[in-house]
């Protein structure tokens, strides 16, 4: 950037936890984990988008020296319940009778080394009977289209609350349909002064995880031990238990540092397969996917959203109908939840008299769509914030004022029976406008656009537990299942614990995540960790503090109300008593560890639309200044401003990093990033051809702001912001393009060709 943001005002802190290891090469990821004599796996994948598997001949491969075993669908079918997916499970541990996308695994080789495994994979003969491909939503919904699944989907459609519906298999090739609504949308639209209908489309992107999927599995008798890059070790444990028909305590999962997650490593993926490979081989097995394979494992839902929105004569929003079709790809993964959340988030940041949002997930023979930062909110905010802007312009209203008129106020419920919005949306929007220079005169040819996105955060009825241990020397260890995926989870948890204890952060350690020792949670996703696990840690820290104070009071022979914990001493009146000698005197030997316990659970509440009140709301305010080359259609983003509200920042630098990182992912999707199909096959599913942003792509002026509005319910008023930066960036840029040129581009990414076509259409329209 020409004007780099100066280093934050706070002086550099002492690095915490794994920070020093990350800059010296000492950080250990699942990618680095090895076991003596471990074997190596490779997957054979389908070259066809859709086919029946008539037979698999592994005989030649099995004969090769160094090949230990080969796992196929037959092995998977023998498992108790060999399917996975969130709520709806249709993805087999290994393809049995059919393959459903180019890249669908059909066999797994286990060999003494990877080279041998490759050779063997190539020698496996699969007899395919090709079936018609369904490459788009329209293909899948065409009358008479082949159906991707013959049997009803296993699992139960997500339970939902009041005003919502949730149905599995509503129609051929439709995995799931859901809705969120309140009020009488028909009536309100009828009564509206103006009603506008617009359609938006968004393409698929991949997480582009630098540490690709990697797992190591080892059985000791009936007990499975895994080292996994999965973000949700307890979710994984539960899935493996169900799939194998074994007890959860027969499974132990270790989660080292994760080299990139963004939701791509959430929920079950190929881990049960690795466990199956290790069991069949009778030896530890490592399966490391390549990044190419990662590109064909999971993507963000592409889709089409049609919004019909009414306004009254005073420019107030009345009602919105949303019709959302998400392309779920071959298998469900987290599609049901993404769809439900997408529908739920169609209200955006605004007050509505009525809303009726319907979403469905259509099955196609493409890479599965699933959990990706933003989780339906990215898609929904793009459509919503583009349309809000278009409506304002059609009404000759200032887009900023139009929004401000309709924004939810702090404390106002997002939906009936749901929690109040715990951010000041208007204040953040105003700050974004200031920073982008909205009220200054525009440079010639430049346009400015905003967006404000809001998504529920913290999960639905989420829970977490934590332990906080304090030694006789005042060293603190926090044990929880929150996984470090780069969001500084260990530091956040240790800050919360040491704040409650009044001890220095430098004396705290975050324990390795290990399902044998870490107390369980729902998973590191939905931006819940800082708040949900944070509340559990806070409670655990208070518990252990009370234990320490009660111990000291007993030792001093006084009432606990007479003493105060002060650093690693207790004060009673004017006297100070160091704790370590007191503890050693009583416990002797190697000393003692106080162990505090905490937990949090948001209760279910069936009247709330999602079935529980939302724990927090996660806004994102963004503004972009662009210019458009009218001969090429190329868009240059000169300035990008992004802001979020963490309630209270535990570490401002970390907050900036989260918002900026997400914003650039969203920026890339807006400008050029997409996983494309050419006919039946992926066109750019390689690291060389799948373009992700480099430093040179970042807008010249790029800044983030962290607005600590202190309205949230986490420890000291905090909440999460991990996904915030995804929300609304594409709309802000689209709005800026319209501000600069008058042209409406409503399909992402805004490639030069698309923008040029919009400019051409506009000129043609002008000439009429």
């Amino acid at each position, binding site marked *: 950037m020409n004007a780099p943001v100066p*280093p934050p005002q706070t002086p550099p802190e002492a690095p915490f936890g794994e*920070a020093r290891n990350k*800059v010296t090469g000492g950080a250990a990821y699942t990618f680095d984990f090895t076991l003596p004599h471990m074997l190596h796996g490779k997957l054979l994948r389908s070259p066809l988008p859709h086919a029946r598997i008539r037979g698999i001949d592994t005989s030649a491969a099995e004969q090769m020296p160094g090949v230990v075993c080969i796992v196929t669908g037959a092995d998977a079918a023998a498992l108790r319940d060999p399917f996975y997916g969130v709520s709806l499970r249709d993805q087999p541990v290994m393809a049995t009778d059919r393959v459903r996308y180019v890249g669908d695994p059909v066999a797994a080789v286990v060999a003494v080394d990877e080279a041998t495994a490759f050779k063997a994979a190539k020698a496996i003969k699969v007899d395919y009977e090709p079936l018609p491909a369904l490459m788009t939503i329209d293909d899948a919904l065409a009358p008479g289209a082949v159906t991707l699944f013959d049997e009803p989907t296993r699992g139960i459609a997500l339970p939902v609350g009041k005003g919502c519906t949730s149905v599995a298999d509503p129609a051929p090739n439709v995995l799931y349909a859901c809705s969120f609504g309140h009020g009488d949308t028909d009536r309100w639209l009828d009564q509206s002064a103006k009603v506008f209908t617009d359609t938006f489309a968004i393409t698929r992107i991949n997480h582009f995880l630098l540490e690709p999927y990697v797992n190591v599995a080892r059985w000791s008798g009936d007990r499975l031990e895994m080292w996994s890059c999965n973000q949700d070790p307890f979710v994984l444990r539960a899935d493996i238990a169900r799939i194998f028909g074994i007890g959860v305590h027969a499974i132990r999962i270790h989660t080292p540092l994760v080299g990139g997650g963004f939701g791509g490593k959430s929920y079950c993926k190929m881990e049960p397969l690795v466990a199956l490979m290790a069991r069949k081989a009778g030896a530890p097995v490592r399966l490391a996917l390549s*990044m190419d394979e990662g590109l064909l494992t999971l993507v963000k839902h592409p889709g089409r959203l049609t919004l019909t929105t009414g306004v009254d004569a005073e420019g107030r929003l009345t009602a919105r109908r949303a019709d959302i079709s998400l392309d779920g790809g071959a298998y469900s993964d987290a599609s049901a939840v993404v769809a439900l959340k997408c529908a739920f988030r169609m209200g955006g940041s605004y007050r509505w008299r009525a809303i009726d949002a319907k979403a469905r997930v259509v099955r196609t023979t493409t890479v599965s769509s699933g959990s990706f930062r933003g989780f339906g909110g990215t898609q929904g905010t793009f459509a919503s914030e583009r349309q809000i802007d278009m409506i304002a312009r059609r009404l000759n209203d200032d887009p900023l004022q139009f929004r401000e008129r309709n924004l939810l106020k702090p404390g106002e419920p997002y939906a009936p029976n749901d929690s109040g919005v715990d951010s000041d949306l208007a204040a953040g929007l105003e700050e974004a406008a200031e920073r982008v220079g909205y009220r200054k005169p525009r440079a010639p040819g430049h346009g400015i656009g905003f967006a404000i996105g809001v998504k529920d955060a913290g999960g639905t009825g989420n829970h977490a537990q934590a332990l906080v241990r304090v030694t006789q020397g005042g060293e603190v260890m926090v044990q929880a299942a929150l996984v470090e995926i780069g969001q500084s989870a260990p530091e956040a948890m240790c800050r919360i614990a040491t704040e409650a204890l009044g001890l220095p952060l430098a004396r705290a350690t975050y324990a390795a995540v290990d399902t044998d020792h870490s107390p369980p949670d729902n998973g590191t996703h939905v931006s819940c960790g800082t708040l949900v696990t944070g509340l559990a840690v806070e409670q655990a820290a208070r518990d252990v503090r009370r234990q320490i104070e009660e111990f000291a009071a007993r030792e001093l022979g006084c009432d606990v109300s007479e003493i105060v914990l002060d650093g690693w001493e207790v004060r009673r009146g004017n006297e100070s008593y160091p704790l370590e000698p007191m503890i050693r005197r009583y416990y002797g030997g190697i000393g003692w560890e106080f162990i505090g316990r905490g937990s949090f659970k948001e209760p279910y509440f069936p009247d709330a639309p999602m079935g529980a009140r939302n724990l927090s709301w996660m806004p994102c305010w963004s503004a972009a200044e662009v210019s458009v080359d009218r001969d090429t259609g190329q868009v240059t983003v000169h300035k990008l401003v992004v802001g979020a509200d963490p309630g209270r920042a535990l570490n401002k630098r970390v907050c900036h*990093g989260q918002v900026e*990182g997400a914003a*650039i992912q969203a920026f890339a999707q807006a400008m050029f990033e997409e996983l494309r199909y050419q006919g039946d096959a992926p066109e750019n599913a390689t690291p060389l051809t799948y373009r992700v942003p480099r*430093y040179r792509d970042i807008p010249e002026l790029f800044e983030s702001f962290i607005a600590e509005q202190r309205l949230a319910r986490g420890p000291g008023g905090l909440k999460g912001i991990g996904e915030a930066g995804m929300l609304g960036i594409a709309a802000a840029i689209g709005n800026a393009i319209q501000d600069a040129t008058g042209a409406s581009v409503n399909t992402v990414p805004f490639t030069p060709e698309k923008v040029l076509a919009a400019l051409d259409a506009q000129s043609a329209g002008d000439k009429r």
Partner: protein
Amino acid sequence: MTDVAISFTLNGKPHKLAVAPNVTLADLLRDNFALTGCKVGCDEGVCGACTVIVNGAPVSACNTFAFSVDGRSITTIEGLAAAGTLHRVQQAFLDSGAFQCGFCTSGMILSIAVLLAREPQPDEATIRDWLAGNICRCTGYRAIRDAIERAIHAAPAEAVP
């Protein structure tokens, strides 16, 4: 397949080995020397996570055969610090919090160390050209640019071996 005899300096120490010609530098470092700071991300020379320094220049270890380092001097992230003192780029990364998951960080730091050894005060265009080969998916790069600024203003450069 005939092994190739090579000798090279690795983080200041001399070594002699015989390597199979089809072994990459990434695997030589990770498997033979347990230098796992060199991460393999894309395995196509694109992402830069496997960047190491050979004779003062950045190379993709995943796209370089081990035999080609014969007679050369290699520096990995583990060798960047001198006697326990971090290189100024490492320190700047810590001070700026210029990493999140950390998987790209070794390659990113080494690339920047080479840049600053060659050009102590690089302009923005030079930094843009130089960082084109190091992908970070987590940070959005602003904090990394921040770290570069800190490193530029820090003490004079250590020579990159």
